[in-house]
């Protein structure tokens, strides 16, 4: 028994030493980033490559959630939560609703045209977009966030609920108008 304990102790010690010498913190940090990055990128690739548009919608949501996790990883939990709620929730629901309310013959081949002309056009447009984003992010000088600013949510809440109380309540009225307007239009379509 004593021998066994000694062995376990030795193995644990060896593991700790190796982790320290390999700079485990940096390693875990990097592997978490790459895992989240690959989830987002592969899901986005699947959106384009899937033949069934319902699978594309599901993978798009997975990609949104991966990006939301990346925001949290970059110390912006509020932006991450907004990404989950607005993109992973609202946008995903809208896309699925659009699919549910349209009629298609066969879901297995429901994704957009795969003709060479369309693919070339898509490649040119997405290439140009990628170029623009790359140039813009290379030319931007990013600054280190100062620690005194504190959590972004705290500052946002303080401003939203004290100084900018009126715009905050107006946002509620705006949402109310959007809901009533959408209901009036949708009910009209429902009854006719």
């Amino acid at each position, binding site marked *: 028994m004593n021998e066994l304990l000694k062995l376990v102790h030795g193995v644990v010690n060896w593991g700790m030493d190796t982790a320290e010498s390999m700079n485990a913190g940096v390693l875990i940090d990097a592997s978490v980033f790459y895992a989240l990055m690959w989830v987002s990128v592969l899901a986005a690739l699947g959106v384009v490559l899937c033949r069934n548009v319902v699978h594309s919608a599901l993978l798009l949501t997975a990609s949104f959630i991966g990006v939301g996790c990346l925001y949290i*990883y970059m110390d912006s939990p509020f932006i991450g939560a907004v990404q989950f709620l607005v993109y992973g929730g609202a946008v995903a629901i809208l896309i699925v609703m659009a699919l549910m309310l349209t009629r298609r013959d066969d879901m297995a081949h429901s994704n957009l045209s795969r003709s060479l002309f369309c693919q070339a056009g898509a490649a040119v447009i997405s290439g140009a977009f990628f170029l623009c984003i790359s140039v813009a992010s290379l030319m931007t000088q990013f600054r280190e966030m100062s620690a005194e600013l504190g959590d972004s949510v705290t500052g946002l809440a303080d401003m939203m609920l*004290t100084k900018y109380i009126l715009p*905050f309540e107006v946002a*509620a009225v705006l949402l109310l108008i959007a809901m009533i307007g959408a209901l009036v239009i949708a*009910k009209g379509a429902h009854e006719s």
Partner: protein
Amino acid sequence: MKIMGDFGGLGIFFVVTLIFPITALIPAFLLQPRHPTKQKGIPYECGVDTIGKTYVQYRIGYFLYALIFLVFDIETVFLYPWAVRFGALGLFALLEMFLFLGILGLGLWYAWKKGALSWK
């Protein structure tokens, strides 16, 4: 070492929740008897074979629920910062949030009144 901060525990939790079902499924996959037949391959639909196409156009009624969901989903975004700072901001913020929810509640009341929530 950033990852062992607030969300490190959450990350470990996610990894464990991935490992648990996978380790449970691997022995089942290895030990299962495999006798595939055509009958076993068809999608289960209440024991009755499907006739025609399985994809249909859904009722517009679902869409009304989706619209209401969207509004209350956006509302949650506003609730989140309030919930984080609730302790410091106190009663005034509570009243503000009740006003905010009340305005949105009017929309729900309108939808109810107009029969958007009844399933026809």
